[in-house]
């Protein structure tokens, strides 16, 4: 084996023992484990909502409108008497969707764009970065508000709006990591034995920039859930017949002084799941990518 080929094979991908060590360290990281537990509860609640919900989340009962928590309705009833607990469970299902799909959109567009920009550099890099600068000129959720305002409300449009916001984050991260990795010796060695660009990106660069991307994705799901809830609160989210936490808050805020539980529980649910994802993301960062945590 030539020296270059030996270096290519020594590309610093984690071995199974490194993985086991990381897993052991992760299980000892208490905040991360707490975050994982919260996220698991949320995922289970979302997936098994139809089985877990004691009532039909859409069934109104005006006799029970704005009733506080009771033995029959643990978290009370909303402004038209629907069971809050059942609605929160179904809302978890939707939040799971608006957390994962927009982040996938961001990953699928942002990562290849950042990889190509960082790897090839030159005019491609310049164009990609200017495009990202333009998107970043719309701060925070303003880009999502812009897209939603013109596309109109709806689940599909909500996911597109929130997804677009995460593209710049991934492009910048993938580009920065690619720039660092492409200077490594094993990349130079691979290049010297004539590895094609596609193979280089797929087998040598992408696997070595995965750690920060995984960490960012966890934090990005949290951010997507917050953005989707904010759009729901502004009336730019899902249609009224879909159960979503932000929209529940928007509808309930009229009764804030008479039926606190209608606004308290959905907001608390959002905070809890976002907190779980942030704890998990921070923990993963400490373990997978110590440089980012500094």
């Amino acid at each position, binding site marked *: 084996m030539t020296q270059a080929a030996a270096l290519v094979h020594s590309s610093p991908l984690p071995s199974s023992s490194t993985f086991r060590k990381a897993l052991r360290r992760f299980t000892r990281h208490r905040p991360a484990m707490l975050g994982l537990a919260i996220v698991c509860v949320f995922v289970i609640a979302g997936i098994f909502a139809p089985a877990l919900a004691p009532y039909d989340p859409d069934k109104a009962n005006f006799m029970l409108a704005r009733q506080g928590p009771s033995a029959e309705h643990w978290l009370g009833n909303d402004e038209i008497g629907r069971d809050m607990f059942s609605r929160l469970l179904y809302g978890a299902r939707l939040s799971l969707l608006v957390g994962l799909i927009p982040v996938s959109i961001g990953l699928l567009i942002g990562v290849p764009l950042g990889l190509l920009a960082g790897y090839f550099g030159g005019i491609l890099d310049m164009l990609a970065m200017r*495009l990202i600068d*333009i998107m970043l000129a719309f*701060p925070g959720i*303003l880009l999502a508000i812009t897209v939603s305002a013109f596309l109109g409300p709806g689940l599909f449009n909500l996911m597109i709006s929130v997804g677009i916001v995460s593209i710049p984050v991934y492009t910048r991260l993938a580009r920065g990591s690619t720039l660092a990795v492409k200077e490594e010796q094993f990349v130079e060695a691979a290049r010297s034995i004539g590895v094609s660009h596609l193979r280089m990106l797929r087998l040598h660069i992408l696997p070595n920039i995965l750690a920060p991307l995984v960490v960012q994705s966890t934090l990005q799901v949290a951010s997507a859930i*917050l953005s989707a809830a904010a759009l729901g609160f*502004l009336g730019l989210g899902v249609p009224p017949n879909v159960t979503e936490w932000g929209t529940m808050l928007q509808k309930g805020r009229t009764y804030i002084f008479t039926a606190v539980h209608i606004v*308290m529980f959905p907001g608390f649910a959002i*905070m809890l799941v976002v907190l779980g994802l942030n704890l998990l993301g921070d923990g993963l960062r400490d373990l997978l990518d110590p440089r980012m945590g*500094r």
Partner: protein
Amino acid sequence: MTRYIIRRILLVIPVLFGASVLVFGALRLAPGDPAVAIAGELASPELKAQVRKEMGLDQSLPLQYAIYLSKVLQGDLGKSIKTGAPVIAEILDKLPNTILLATTSLTLAALVGILLGVLASVKPYSWIDGGSMTLALLGVSMPVFWLGLMLMIFFAVLLPRWLGLPGPIFPPTGSGTWQHLVMPTITLAATSMAILARMTRATMLEVLRQDYVRTARAKGLRERAVVFGHALRNALIPVVTIMGLQFGILLSGAVLTETVFAWPGIGRLLVDSISYRDYPMVQGIILFIAVGFTFVNLAVDILYAFLDPRIRYA
């Protein structure tokens, strides 16, 4: 330095151009006829035709954009469908309220955030560190609008009830007095405060390990002088940059905060205009915020280059 500033200013031009194309294109790319979107579904065919002509929709897209851009460059962002007033006049009317809210929020966030960060870094892994960082974590995890609603319940219902007061401690909605500012300021400051606290703690921990801090301690300086006189001053450079970038977070947070507290700023104007389908107003506000944010970022970058020479020679 001059070369860096010129290069940085030149980079703003494609960003502003792109932002204007995006805002212009958003209405055109939206499903349906832009004239119907602006005049409304129920408008007469004559009105729709008039809107089409006024907007130049009978022209080619590049020509439409050229007309739009030339108007924007002259400060003409169109007229509000709701009030008929020039969009720019309405924005400038509401802007001082948003700037006031953003300024008070950033001040509160900086004071509390930096203090929490310093306290946490001086005694890492103590209960003060744990408490401060838990608070910071809650700050970044809490939906801004929900925090606003919870503060409303606390200051307008619960606290007056516990203290036996007849009315709310701070007015839950509106503007005009300093009391109106309290709840929106806390709400808007929460996220930025959390970010600044985490950032200050991280940079302070780094700085406190430096040799010059050890020297300062070795020569017998009091701990307070070491922390505030030597460590914090150096740790503040990256924190100041983050503070500049908080402006964007504050602007998008203002949209939600102003909606919760009926604060008459441009954030609430944007939300009202979206629900009224006042598209020229929506376009105008979004472009205005994007341009403003781009210039604030430019100012922060230039300021940072003054503070840290490594940036301008990079």
